[in-house]
């Protein structure tokens, strides 16, 4: 751990990229914590939205524009709207949720601590690769490449997986229609 900390170049930390990264990480951490800690359901969902939005910002700083747009449309735009629709069906939405028992709180705290320690150990064992090469690789990923990879049948191309997922989605759509349809007798 100490060796890892001394290996960081603190003077070189305050570049424009890093400052943006720190701001985004602060938003992610604070909003992520608030979304768990908030006792009001809809507020928790809103904090979760800010977390997801800031993660999209992180992808943008890596110039992974496609993933950022996916993050926005799938999580922030899709899943969160669904979540809020679902929350609005809940009774007594404005009041605070039940308080959590101390046993649960202790277990949650311990597992969070374990996760943090695990992440730090992993970080000190396996270093991050230098960012220059990574940025070059990221810059080359454009829509065309994503499309070719999804639609190709060569090695490292995913047509079969893509089609399997689309059949799964189709099954979900048909299933949701069946569930939502009222039968004539009702």
């Amino acid at each position, binding site marked *: 751990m100490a060796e890892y900390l001394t290996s960081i170049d603190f003077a070189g930390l305050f570049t*424009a990229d890093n400052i943006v990264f720190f701001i985004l990480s602060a938003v992610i951490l604070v909003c992520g914590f608030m979304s768990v800690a908030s006792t*009001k359901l*809809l*507020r928790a969902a*809103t904090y979760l*939205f800010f977390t997801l939005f800031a993660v999209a910002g992180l992808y943008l700083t890596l110039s992974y*524009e*496609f993933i*950022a*747009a*996916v993050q*926005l*449309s799938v999580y*922030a*735009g*899709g899943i*969160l*709207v669904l979540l*809020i*629709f679902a929350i*609005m069906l809940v009774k007594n*939405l*404005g009041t605070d949720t039940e308080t959590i028992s101390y046993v649960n709180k202790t277990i949650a705290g311990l597992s969070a601590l374990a996760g943090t320690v695990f992440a730090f150990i992993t970080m000190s064992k396996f270093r991050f690769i230098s960012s220059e090469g990574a940025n070059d690789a990221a810059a080359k990923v*454009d*829509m*065309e490449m994503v499309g070719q990879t999804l639609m190709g049948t060569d090695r490292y191309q995913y047509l079969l997986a893509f089609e399997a997922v689309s059949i799964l989605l189709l099954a979900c759509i048909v299933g949701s229609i069946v569930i939502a349809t009222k039968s004539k007798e009702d």
Partner: protein
Amino acid sequence: MLEVGGILSWIHEALSSACPEWLTLLIEYVLIGVGFLALYALIALILILLERKICAYYQCRLGPMRAGFWGLLQPLADMFKILMKEIIPLLKNDKFLFFTALFLVIMGSLCTFGALEFSKDLIGIDFNVGVFYVLAISSLGVLGILLAGWSSNNKYTMIGAMRAGAQLVSYELSSGLSLLTIVILGGTMQLSGLIEAQSETWFLFQSPFTWIAMVIYLIAGHAETNRGPFDLPEAESELTAGYHIEYSGITFGLFYVGEYVNMFTIAGIGTMVFLGGWQPFHINAEWAAGFNGVMDMIPTWLWFFAKAFGLVMLSLWVRWSFPRLRIDQLLHLEWKILMPISLLNMLLMALWVTVLVPLFA
């Protein structure tokens, strides 16, 4: 001469000769942000005047005539009035969500507005995934509207918000599908690339299926701005004003500004993907070289704004001509008419690009 690119590069050179690189970038980012906000507010003011005048003419009235010549200063008067109004606090509501909702609506609207390309060299955001970005970021507004409706703690706002949610989520589909139809034709998702592909002929004249896509996009886009005949979320006669009824003063004003600028953004995106964006009108033939030359002399930002405001006029025309739809008619129109047509249209466009065009080329 009349382009803005010269001024922009002059500012850039002046700044970089006087400041270090990071300061230049910082100042430029701030300037761009302020410029976008100013343009955002300006367009909202213009649209408010336009709406009031056009609405009046459709109803055989004169509209505002007192403030300034032909009522030209009316939006400024409105602006100062609404800025000075008191923001009335509600007693039992979630204040945090109440103002976050407003923030989300404005943020979604402004981020989409930033993707517009106003002229050849006045481009805010130009991602490789431009069209996808626009579709993704414009969905933030739904979240804001839902939160606004709930946190106002009022049954009318709640009904309005639920209607808005159903409407926006549905109509996003067909507007997205019609934009993707154009992506198939243009072969790129980058908005500047799409405009580049229209330098000789606009997409509208490149394929018959573009017309279908454009009509569907304009209907769906119109529905996404919550304006009549799709104004169920804020139907005055049923819900007083829908999801923003409890907002007062400038907070209410900002909802309106967001809605008006959304109308312009929808028109602007329609302009960029169907009508060539800032590209002048060209006839792709030998004999029309002189005509094309004359068209080129009109500055590109004028082309963009003229086309976009043309589409805005279309939207105003529709708004003041049709009666409001019922919620079942609204959903029927989207799910049983527009979406099947746009799916089929997308397939036909793919066939056009892969089979028909190579056949005749």
